[in-house]
C-alpha cells in the first residue's frame, strides 16, 4: 500500500509544530439537511477547524444533551442514514478536511463492523469516536479498524481510574478524547476544573495526543484548554450557532475558536 494517507497523527504533529492545539468541530450528518451540513462543515474548515467530527445520527443518544439530541432527531426525521454519514465524510475529505466519525455503537454493528471500517476508509475517513463502546466489547471493532487504517478513538472521564486510563489508552489510536466533566454534551459557562487534572493524569499514561471535549463554546474557553491539551473539541456550540445564524454564524464561531487555540499561553 503506497497510497499516502493523511492521518490524525499528522494533524496533531502539524499543530504542535505551530505551537498550538488542534481544533476539532462536531456536526451531525444531515443537519439541518445533507447539503446544509456539508455547507456548514465547509465553513468550519474554511475558518480554522482542523478536524471534523461527523456525527452519525442515532435514535438513542444517551451521552448527548438537548442541543445535539434535537439536531440528530431532526436529521433522522429528514431521512439521514449511515450512507448519509459516509457521503458527508466524503464531502469533508474532498474539501481537504480530515473527517472522523462520532457514532454510538449499534448503527456500526448493524451496518457491519468490517464493512463500516472499510467503506469509511475508502471515503476518506480517518477515525471513529465510539462513546458507548467500552474496550471490553471492542475487539471485533479494533481488528476491523486496524485492518482498514481507521483510528479507534475512545473516551476517558474524570471518574476513570489510573489503570482504566492505561487500558483505554492502549486500545486508542489518533487521540484520546478526554471528557472535561461528568456529564453529557452541551455548552457550559465554565468548563469543568476537572479537565486539567484529567489531562495531567492521562499524560502520565500515554504519548497519544489528548483532546478535551464537553462544554466548550467560546474562544476564551478554547484558549484555556489549549494551554494544557493537544486538542479542543466543540460540538453543541456549532449547532447552536447554525440554529441562530446559519453558515455565517458557524464561520464566525470557527474563526473565534481558531483564534482561541492559537492564543493560548502554552
Amino acid at each position: 500500500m503506497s497510497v499516502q494517507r493523511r492521518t490524525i497523527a499528522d494533524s496533531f504533529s502539524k499543530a504542535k509544530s505551530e505551537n498550538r492545539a488542534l481544533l476539532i468541530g462536531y456536526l451531525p450528518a444531515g443537519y439541518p439537511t445533507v447539503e446544509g451540513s456539508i455547507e456548514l462543515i465547509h465553513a468550519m474548515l474554511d475558518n480554522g477547524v482542523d478536524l471534523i467530527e461527523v456525527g452519525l445520527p442515532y435514535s438513542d443518544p444517551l451521552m448527548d444533551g438537548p442541543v445535539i439530541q434535537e439536531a440528530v432527531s431532526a436529521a433522522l426525521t429528514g431521512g439521514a442514514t449511515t450512507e448519509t454519514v459516509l457521503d458527508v465524510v466524503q464531502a469533508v475529505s474532498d474539501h481537504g478536511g480530515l473527517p472522523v466519525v462520532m457514532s454510538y455503537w449499534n448503527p456500526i454493528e448493524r451496518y457491519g463492523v468490517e464493512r463500516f471500517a472499510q467503506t469509511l476508509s475508502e471515503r476518506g475517513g480517518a477515525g471513529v469516536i465510539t462513546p458507548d463502546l467500552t474496550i471490553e466489547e471492542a475487539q471485533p471493532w479494533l481488528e476491523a479498524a486496524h485492518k482498514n487504517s481507521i483510528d479507534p478513538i475512545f473516551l476517558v472521564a474524570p471518574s476513570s481510574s489510573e489503570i482504566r486510563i492505561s487500558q483505554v489508552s492502549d486500545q486508542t489510536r489518533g487521540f484520546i478524547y478526554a471528557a472535561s466533566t461528568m456529564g453529557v454534551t452541551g455548552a457550559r459557562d465554565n468548563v469543568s476544573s476537572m479537565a486539567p487534572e484529567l489531562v495531567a493524569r492521562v499524560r502520565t499514561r500515554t504519548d497519544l495526543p489528548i483532546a478535551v471535549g464537553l462544554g466548550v463554546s467560546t474562544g476564551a474557553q478554547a484558549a484555556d484548554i489549549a494551554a494544557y491539551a493537544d486538542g479542543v473539541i466543540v460540538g453543541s456550540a456549532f449547532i447552536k450557532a447554525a440554529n441562530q445564524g446559519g453558515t455565517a454564524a458557524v464561520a464566525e464561531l470557527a474563526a473565534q475558536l481558531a483564534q482561541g487555540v492559537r492564543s493560548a499561553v502554552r
Partner: protein
Amino acid sequence: MTTTESTDSVREGSLPGHFGPYGGRFVPEALTAALDELDAAFRAAILDPVFTAELARLERDYTGRPSPLTRANRFEEYCNGARVYLKREDLNHTGSHKINNVLGQALLTQRMGKTRVIAETGAGQHGVATATAAALLGLDCTVYMGEEDTRRQALNVARMKLLGAEVVSVTAGSRTLKDAINEAMRDWVSTVDQTHYMLGTVTGPAPFPELVRFFHSVIGREAREQILAVEGRLPDAVAACVGGGSNAMGLFSGFIDDPEVQLRGYEAGGDGVDTGRHAARFAAGTPGVLHGARTYVMQDEWGQTVASHSISAGLDYPGVGPEHAWLHDIGRAVYEPVNDAEAMTAFSLLSRTEGIIPAIETAHGLAGVMRLGAELGPDSVIMVNLSGRGDKDVATAARWFGIDLGDVVSAELAEGR
C-alpha cells in the same frame, strides 16, 4: 469489569457480565467506575449476613412475603382443565413484583454511601416502587417518565409525588420508556458520585441484569417450594409476561436448572406482529445493542431503534433483558407474542372467574397460560407469575370494554389512551 463470579450456574461458559453473546457493557466511559463500584458492592452485600438479614426482614415485614400461591380453579376451565397456579406478586406492597428489586437496590444505595436514587418508569409501577423504597430509607428520589406515559398513567404520577419523589416528564424522542431510560442515564452520568440508578428490570449494562434477577429470585425460590408442597412435583411449565423481563427472570430462576420444567415468556404482540405495531422483540427483532447491553432489539436496517407498541405500558419497550435473549437462543425458554385483544380477553376472564383483576402486563402471561393448557393437556401443572394487580389499568380496561366511567373521571382519564 470486576465481575468475578456469577450468582448462578446457568451462565457457565459466558464471560463475566455476559449471557453467551448477550449483555456486556455499552456505556459512556464515565459510568465504568460506577458500574464497577456497584458490582463490587453487590457481590459483597449478598455474602454479608447483615445485608441479607435486613433484606429478608423487609421482604417479610414490609413487602409481605412470602406471596401466596393461589390455585385458579375456575380460570382453569378456560385452560383446557390444566391445573393453574398463580404466584401472587400482585399482593406485595405497592401491588407488583417491582418492590423486590427496589428494596435490594435501596439497601445497596445506602451501603455505597449514596443519598439519591433515580429511576425510569413506563407504566409507573417501578417508579412507585422506587419512590416507596426511597421514602422508607430516606433517600432523595427522581423518577424519569416519558411525557406520553405521564398522561396515560396519571394516577401513578400522583402516587410518586405523594411519596415525595420528583417526577420528570421526558419530552425527548418518542416520549416513552425508552426515552425515560436515556434521560435517567444522562442524569446518572452527571451525578454519579451521590446518585444510584435504580434500573427497574433485567436490562442495561452489567451488573444490572444479574443484580435485578438476583433480587427477584425470591419469587422463583418461594414458588418452587410452594408447588412442591401442594402438588408434590414440579410444574410442567412456568409462564410470565416479558417486557424487560424481570418478573419472568425472577420466576424462571427457580426452575432454570430443572430441565423438565418448560420456561415460557409472553411478549406484547400489540395490534399483531404483522402490523408492525407491537413490542415483539423475539418475533420481529434482531440482535443489537440498546441501553447498555447486547440483546434482541426492535431496530431498522440502519440500527435505529424502532418504536414499540402495546396496550400495556410496562411491555411497551423495544429491547429485552439479555439473559432472555440467551435463553431464547439456546432454546431453554420459549417466547411468543400475545396480542392486545388476546391479553384483554384473559384480563377479563381472570377478573370474572377468580375475582382478581390483573395488570394488563400480567394478562399477557395469562393468555399464554390459556394456550399452554391447550398444548400441555388437562393433567398438566402450570404456574404463572401474577406479577401485578390491575388497579392502575382500570381506565384503560374500561375504555377497552366500553365501560362508562362517568363524566368527571372520563375527562381526567381521556388524556390517556
